[in-house]
Every structure is written in C-alpha cells, then in structure tokens.
C-alpha cells in the first residue's frame, strides 16, 4: 500500500489586504511523509506554523506552492490543487480531523454529532449511534448529556464530543489539533489509548500536542516545524 501522506515543498503565506497588502510568510519548503501506523507530532514554539500546516493538510487553508499527496482509495490525490468536491470526498472517506474547538450546530444532539461522519459514509443511523455511544462512554461523557446539543457543555465536554466525532470512522489519515488541551488526566489517558488503537489499525496520524506527557506517549517522531520557517529558508 502507498504511503498515506506525502508532503513536499509546501509553502504558505498570507496577504493581508486590509493591512496595505502586507505579505506574511508562514512556512516554506515543508516536506515530510507519514507512514501507516505512525504518529508524527508537529513540534516547535507557538506561532511557528503548526496549526497552519494541519489546516493546509485538511484543505481549509490554501497552499501557495508544493504538493500534498494522499492515498485516497488507492488513487493519489494532490490536496493542494484538488477541486472542492474531491476535497470533500477525501474528507468523507480518507481524511479525518479533530479540531481544537467544536463547531456546534444548533439543535443537533451530541450523540448525532458524533454519529454523523459514519452516517455520511452510509452506516445506518442506529448502528452509527450505537458506535457513538460506545465512544462517548469510553470518554466518560455523562450519559445525560448525550441527547443535548453541546452548545452549553464545558470546554472539556465539547472537546470529548469532538474527539469522539473524529475517532468514530476508520479514516486512514487523522489530523489532531491539540485534542487533549482541556482534558483532565483520566480522559487524556483515554485519548492516548484511542491513538494507540488507531496506530495498531494502521492509521497515519499527524498531531499537535502541547502536553509533554501525552506527546511522549503517542509520538513516533517529532517534526520540528521551526525548520520550515520561511526566514530560515531565505537565509
């Protein structure tokens, strides 16, 4: 099987038109790959471009240069140039993402938010909900919250809904943006365990973890993002 993710010579800058067109380079010459079953952690001080890299990988940041190649159903897709509907298709079946914050949809219950990615792949709703319930109980989200929309949940509760939503499918590539930032020790341990299960199943994981303990527990390799600093590349 092909390497799930190969990033080569990716560069990104922002042009801020409301600030007289100032161009702010973010990263340059980003090249790395992630093997099946490997967890690569993006390291380096904040502001160095870790989140930007994840967002480019997911397609919500555009890419100025370079390629982001993903193995999607045996076909190679370059996410840097793919059409919107191809990106959506890749997200549905190949590429998962756990963001830092849950984007809540009014009136949709926590259970259904978690079940949705499975449903979108054609799993019958009852089966998807059963799977969602399993994950939410593993993450110790009180059962009485399952039927409520998460808008009123605490940060940690929302984050657990988000994690469950990201982990419910068997996407081959999973992006994790500080999934443990607002969790207590017990739930951090659950996430570490979930990540280990994903690795055993051959998922390629790329994550940002500020918590050293979690990072050491999950990382196969730490990629220092400051090496991709555009200032350094220019020097």
């Amino acid at each position, binding site marked *: 099987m092909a390497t799930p993710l190969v990033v080569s010579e990716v560069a990104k800058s*922002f*042009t*801020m*038109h*409301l600030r007289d067109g100032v161009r702010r380079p973010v990263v340059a010459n980003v090249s790395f790959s992630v093997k099946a079953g490997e967890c690569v952690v993006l390291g380096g001080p904040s502001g160095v471009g870790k989140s930007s890299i994840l*967002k480019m990988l997911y*397609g*919500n*940041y*555009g890419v100025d240069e370079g390629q982001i190649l993903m193995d999607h159903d045996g076909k190679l897709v370059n996410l840097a140039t793919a059409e*919107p*509907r191809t*990106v*959506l*298709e890749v997200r549905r079946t190949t590429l998962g993402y756990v963001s830092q914050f849950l984007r809540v*949809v*009014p*009136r*949709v219950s926590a259970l259904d938010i978690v079940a949705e990615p499975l449903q979108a792949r054609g799993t019958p709703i009852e089966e998807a909900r059963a799977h969602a319930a399993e994950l939410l109980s593993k993450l110790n989200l009180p059962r009485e919250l399952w039927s409520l929309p998460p808008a009123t949940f605490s940060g940690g509760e929302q984050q657990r809904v988000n994690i469950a939503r990201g982990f419910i499918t068997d996407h081959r590539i999973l992006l994790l943006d500080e999934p443990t930032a607002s969790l207590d020790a017990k739930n951090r341990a659950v996430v570490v365990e979930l990540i280990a299960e994903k690795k055993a199943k051959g998922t390629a994981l790329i994550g940002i973890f500020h918590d050293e303990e979690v990072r050491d527990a999950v990382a196969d390799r730490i990629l220092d993002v400051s090496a991709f600093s555009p200032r350094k590349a220019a020097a």
Partner: protein
Amino acid sequence: MSTLPLLKVNDLSKFYGSRIGCRNVSFELYAGEVLAIVGESGSGKTTLLSCLSTRLMPTSGIVEYHMRDGQYRDLARMGEAERRFLMRTDWGFVHQNPADGLRMTVSAGANVGERLMAVGDRHYGNIRATASDWLERVEIGVDRIDDQPRAFSGGMRQRLQIARNLVTSPRLVFMDEPTGGLDVSVQARLLDLVRGLVHDLGLAAVIVTHDLAVARLLSHRMMVMKDGAVIEQGLTDRVLDDPREPYTQLLVSSILQV
C-alpha cells in the same frame, strides 16, 4: 459520487440596459452539493439566482440542466410549458418572503398538495396523507393542516414554503435568503431543518445569503460576488478560513463575534 454535473453554467451574463446584473459566471453543480452565493446587496447574487432558475433570461451565456432522462437541456431553449413543469416538479424555489412562494389564502395542506397535483397525483386521501407527513417533517402540527398560512408566524410560513417545495422530491432547490427576516432562534431551527433535509434527500441547492454563518453551516462550496462578478470561489471553509481577495477578507473580518 455522481460523475455528471446536474447544472452546467457557462459564461452567464445579465445586463439591465448598460447596468451589469452579473457577468461571466461559470460553474458546475453536482447532485448533493450545496453552493452558497454570498456578497453584499447589489452584488448580483439574486440576479444570478434568477437567471439560473429561468425566472430571468440571461443576456448571454448558457445554463444547461441534466434532465432525469440523462440528456442535458439548454434552459433558454426550452418551451415555456416545459420550463414551468420543471420548476414545479424537479426544482424548488424558496423565496425570502414566504408570501411570494405560498398561496396565502388556501390551506397549508393545499399549499403542499398543489405541487403533488401538478405531477399528476389525483387521489385526495393520498395527497392529504403526504401533505400531513410533510407538515410533520417541517415541524408544523398536523392540526394546522386546514389553516391558511396567513394565520402562521414568519418561521412557520417559511417552513411551510420549504415543505411545498420539497414534496415533489426535487433534485435542485434554489433559496434566496431563506433565513432573512427571521429571529435568530427561529433561524436556527430552520437551518437545522434545511441541513437535515438536504442531507437526507441528497438535494443539490444554490443558496443566496449575505449571512456567512448560514453559508458556513449549510454549504459545501461558496462563491463570493462583487459588482456582478464572482471574485472568489472554493470550498466553503477554505474561503472563510483563508480568504484571498481583499473584498472577501473584508467580509470575513466584518463578522461580529458573539
């Protein structure tokens, strides 16, 4: 994922005399895709929507629709009767003001049933059963089936308009500011409803809105219009998270944080 687009739009322009309505718009829309058209008032959103839905004739350019028989048809070359049949059956159009899309002086049930009769349904019992099923789906109590929409609140009218449009299982729905003029709590309910229906029915939709939050919630893709032209387009979260054009950056940065 179907491989052929439902709608193909090529170099569409509409002029009102010398004034530009919209110009040189090209895109394709596939089944199951929701496209949001955003931009401020006067940017050409509604003109574009009207040209797509044959409510206005474009000055130049072609809009082709993939008919159920697998053929592409140039909408401008269709006969009036055929076009109207298409609009009543395979398409839906949800107006900002429900009074423009509903018949205010006939019952809610008849508003929904009318479209069924347009596709040849004649059995009163079936029509009434389907109508009450749809009222339930849009969260209108079945005991209101014989009431006229005049007696409904704005949110209920809008939900009724949606039921009227979706009852014939259209493949393509146009929506013009569907949540405009509604209270935010009523908006949330409507958005959730639309989102669910689009997903369950696999609809393609073109939604005109000036509300970027609505676009974010409902659409897969987005086109930003200014002065009649599409200045930026792409995946909705890409356009909103990483806007490229000066005008898009201004729009995105103008959203109030709650």
